[in-house]
């Protein structure tokens, strides 16, 4: 069994660092140009350079999305941009517009080409075509089942990347232009308005089908925790987490769980723990299911009414430092907590402790009953040493 790479999204330089510190083997990011998710902060070229340096120093990889579908005028400046990515030693670009393969060759730009999921590759014959044309890795379409993935791997031995967690497109990726038609925002150039999350009235000729339940086609999120072992057995090379616009808390939480699960499976020590599932579900604001991996999605894999997008208030704070002398955590608050609350502190390398809040001190050293000012610097007691950038959340497990 090969140990797959854990690949995390990085919406900006701060998230890149958090992702790597919390266990990602590689990150993917978008530049200011040529990248979908134009709403994310994204990286300037100098930030890409810094991000690559940060990652490479720690033995991690950086992939840059060049994944818009180029219109004729968009190609201006692309060669210069790709040469910069090569100069900064970016490990690969992720793209679905195949002309870039020929462009890299013609311009002698030495950078690997990963085929984006935007190409919706879902079978081994298409995979063979891409491999013959210098694609180094194929990010499979999220419509693939476990059996499809096994078969594609067996028939091609391709380097395969599979999404394991996060939001999904309603349609075949790259083949949905609803945003263009309903809002004039180009979905394949980074401005998708997520029409799949809108609701509509459905009609049979002039008759409305239902007054009570609006028609929508929003899929629930994807979550493959219980299938990680089977995917590793199938030989998947990279596990990808979706969400370049997600928070550091989301990133750290998801990565912590999958990092440990992958390591334990690889070491032959894994035993399913339902708490992992609870942690993954609680940090997202949408329901998540395996989607296509074990069966064809039905109505249960979609939202119709009651989307239940909850604001998550589990994230209580970030550890700034540990005062060994007074055995106190110095933290920056994020959400409300009070004396007597049970909290969980987690960090890289499986650090995970649960304590009860015995007291809270504000920055002036005064005792307070509760923490209710986001970004306020506070102190709470803890006998066990914790570290800068460990995160504090509600202890919903114990």
């Amino acid at each position, binding site marked *: 069994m090969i140990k797959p790479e854990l690949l995390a999204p990085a919406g900006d330089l701060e998230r890149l660092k958090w992702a790597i510190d919390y266990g990602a083997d590689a990150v993917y990011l978008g530049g200011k140009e040529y990248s979908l998710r134009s*709403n994310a902060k994204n990286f300037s070229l100098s930030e890409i350079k810094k991000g690559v340096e940060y990652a490479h120093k720690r033995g991690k990889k950086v992939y840059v999305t060049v994944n818009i*579908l*180029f*219109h*004729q005028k*968009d*190609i201006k400046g692309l060669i210069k941009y790709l040469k910069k990515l090569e100069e900064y030693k970016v490990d690969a670009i992720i793209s*679905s*517009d*195949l*002309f870039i393969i*020929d462009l890299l060759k013609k311009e002698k730009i030495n950078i690997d080409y990963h085929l984006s999921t935007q190409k*919706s*590759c*879902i*079978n*081994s*014959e*298409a995979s063979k*075509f*891409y491999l*013959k*044309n210098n694609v180094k890795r194929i990010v499979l379409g999220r*419509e693939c089942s476990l*059996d*499809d993935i096994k078969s*594609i791997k067996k028939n091609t031995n391709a380097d395969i990347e599979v999404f394991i967690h996060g939001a999904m497109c*309603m*349609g*075949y990726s*790259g*083949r*949905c*232009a*609803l945003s*263009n*038609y*309903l809002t*004039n*925002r180009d979905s*394949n*150039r*980074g*401005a998708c308005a997520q029409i799949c999350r809108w609701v*509509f*009235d*459905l*009609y*049979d*000729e002039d008759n409305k*089908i*239902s007054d009570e*339940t609006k*028609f929508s*086609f929003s*899929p629930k999120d994807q979550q493959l925790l219980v299938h990680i072992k089977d995917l590793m057995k199938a030989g998947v090379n990279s596990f990808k987490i979706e969400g370049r616009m997600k928070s550091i808390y989301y990133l750290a939480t998801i990565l912590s769980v999958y990092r440990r699960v992958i390591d334990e499976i690889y070491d032959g020590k894994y035993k399913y723990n339902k708490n992992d599932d609870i942690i993954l579900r609680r940090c997202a604001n949408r329901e998540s299911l395996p989607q296509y991996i074990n069966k064809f999605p*039905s*109505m249960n894999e*979609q939202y*119709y009414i009651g989307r239940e997008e909850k604001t998550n208030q589990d994230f209580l704070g970030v550890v700034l430092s540990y005062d060994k002398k007074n055995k106190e955590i110095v933290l920056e608050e994020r959400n409300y907590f009070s004396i007597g609350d049970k909290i969980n502190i987690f960090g890289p390398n499986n650090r995970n402790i649960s304590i009860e809040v015995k007291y809270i001190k504000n920055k002036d050293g005064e005792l307070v009953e509760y923490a209710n000012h986001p970004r306020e610097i506070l102190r709470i007691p803890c006998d066990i040493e914790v570290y800068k950038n460990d995160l504090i959340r509600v202890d919903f497990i114990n």
Partner: protein
Amino acid sequence: MNKYYITNPDNIDRYIDLNVSGFIYGIEKFSSEFNSYLSLDKISLICNKVKNNNKDIIIFLNRLYFEHELKDLKKVLVKLSKLDVIIGFTDDAVLNILNDIGFKGQKLLISNHTGTNSYTLDFYLNRGVKNAYICTELTLNEINDIKNNTKSNIFVKGYGHLNMATSSRKLLTNYFKFIGKKKSKKVYTFKDFITSKEFKIVEDFNTNFYTGDIFNIIEYLPKLDNLNIILDNYLIDNEIFYNEVSNFLNNNVTKDNYIGFLDKETVYRVTDYD
């Protein structure tokens, strides 16, 4: 001079009389977005008739295929390769199989929403695909820019409902199951609350979304030349379609048609959005 291709005609003879350049067909199980589908045997018969009139036949394999469909797909392609047809494909699996079986005929890239620049078409041209059906979300200038910058033989949509999206999910079946009602029609419509525009939704192998309005490029013909124009009758009444095709071939220009993005560029930075 433009050439005209008709999808799945109800009556070939009357379109031959109109002097169209060819016909486009879908085949059972492997094509999508046709009013009806032909068997391989039927296509073979039509080939003989059409070729006698010097018309092209294009077979649209315009779906993505799952792993379990590949075996049958190969069989179909072997049979099609023995007919004098142009093979159109969306899934690059088709191209790989055609290369493996040594297909010598013409191939057509059906790019759906993805054929947006001449460089992409050149990628396929350099690999033996001489024809490309380009994206339907392009402006007139973009179409002409692409055409002027590639030697690929360009196909554009000239008439018909525009496909907006394709999902492999059974979105109508799932919805009707959820609300406890029976799905009884092939085509449904949904409305955008903001613009009150209507759109069509159809479920077959996939669930496809279409513009409610019928796209019609006829007013722009003077600005388009040396293109292959596809006139598509999917979800359109046969007689209405025939009259529209007649208008194209006889240069009877109609006005105030729905023209999609021909005169309207999409934006892709939200800050640019106006």
